[in-house]
């Protein structure tokens, strides 16, 4: 047994065991969130990105980015990458960026301003970024479902954050 190792090895650096465990579980939650289908006027909405946005406000930008990005890849994988892997990698990258943005505005300005900013990014800017790949057609067919879907996810994550915060768990 090596007794001489430096002592506080449990809390060093970014990748503490606590953070690693938390990320793993919240990503899994985000993957199953994809199976929670909410009926809405614009088609069903999956609760897949709510955990990512929650992780962003509750734990910080990098956590949120990892959960948002990897979480998206997982949900896409469970349905067999319906748009092809390259597009989903691109979306995963976007989700990571939106999570960071959400954290920034929600924490530095106001939670609800953050919600609005994130909905605009995830609902309008995100499909616009698809124009080079799928033309205006893709943009228009994604605009409404993505706006409604991201609004539901982001608002739920924000309210959940408020409730959980009151219980001193985060």
């Amino acid at each position: 047994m090596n007794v001489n190792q430096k002592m506080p090895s449990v809390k060093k650096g970014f990748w503490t065991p606590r953070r690693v465990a938390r990320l793993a579980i919240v990503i899994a939650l985000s993957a199953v969130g994809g199976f929670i289908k909410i009926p809405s006027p614009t088609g069903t909405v999956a609760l897949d990105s709510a955990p990512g946005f929650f992780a962003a406000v509750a734990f910080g930008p990098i956590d949120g980015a990892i959960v948002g990005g990897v979480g998206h890849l997982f949900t896409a994988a469970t349905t067999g990458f319906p748009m092809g892997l390259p597009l989903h990698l691109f979306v995963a990258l976007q989700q990571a960026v939106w999570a960071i943005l959400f954290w920034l505005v929600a924490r530095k300005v106001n939670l609800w301003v953050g919600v609005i900013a994130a909905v605009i990014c995830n609902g309008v800017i995100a499909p616009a970024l698809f124009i080079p790949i799928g033309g205006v057609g893709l943009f228009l067919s994604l605009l409404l479902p993505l706006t409604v879907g991201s609004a539901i996810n982001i608002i739920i994550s924000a309210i959940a954050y408020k409730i959980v915060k009151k219980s001193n768990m985060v």
Partner: protein
Amino acid sequence: MLEYFPGSTLIHRLDVRPKVVAFCILTVFLFFFVDPFYNLLFACFATFLMRYIRIPTERVFKLLKPILPIMVIIVFMSGFTYPAGSFENQWANKVMFYGWLGQKLPFVMGGMMFGITLMLRIYSMVLITSVLTFTTPLDQFIQLMRKLRFPQPLTFVIVTSIRFIPTMQKKVDQVFAAQRARGAKFSQNNIFAQIYNYLPVMVPLIVDSLRMSEQLAISMLNRGYGASAHWTALKEMKMKRIDYWAMVAFGCCFAVLVYLRWNGYGSL
């Protein structure tokens, strides 16, 4: 999580590395070539691969059905989007018809062609992705992340979250059952009502996740997580001769296609 169809075709037997390289090359070229003819070739090739690995046809249809309407919209909208005169070739600038009275909203040939390219791109990407995932066990992707020197904790996070998907799925079922048993309803069409309906599901799930993650962190330490930088890899991937040959072959294809594109083939 990922669906894997066991088989013994050449693609099944290849190592994940040459497969991923081939996947990247194909993806790059899908975006290089703008002429739908070339993309049609790619699409045919992807379809051929799909047949080659012997996936039941219904499975492929199930995969494509949800994106079918999107593909039609893409072609249609693209015809209206690009004005005549924006293409290099004469035939591409032809207006096919007008979408509105008085020669407004021209539907341009080149735009439609470009739309078909876009559609074929998505079609091919979906298929080659499936060829990759259907023939490669999940474990190989994890090994690949290790080989690519992903940060070790990140690989661990991904592996562990895969392991926790069934556990979380069970939690989700339990939470739904518990809420329904106390009279919660989940079937309204009003968005705001829906947000209110699903909070009782999301909040317990998050709270439970936080509790579980604390337990998980403790269990990780109990099992020596992070004890040594020299942890033992339980599995090693080995490239076989066939994998090297495949790499060489893909390299040649890459060179040929780059040469063609360089000389102006495949533009609109």
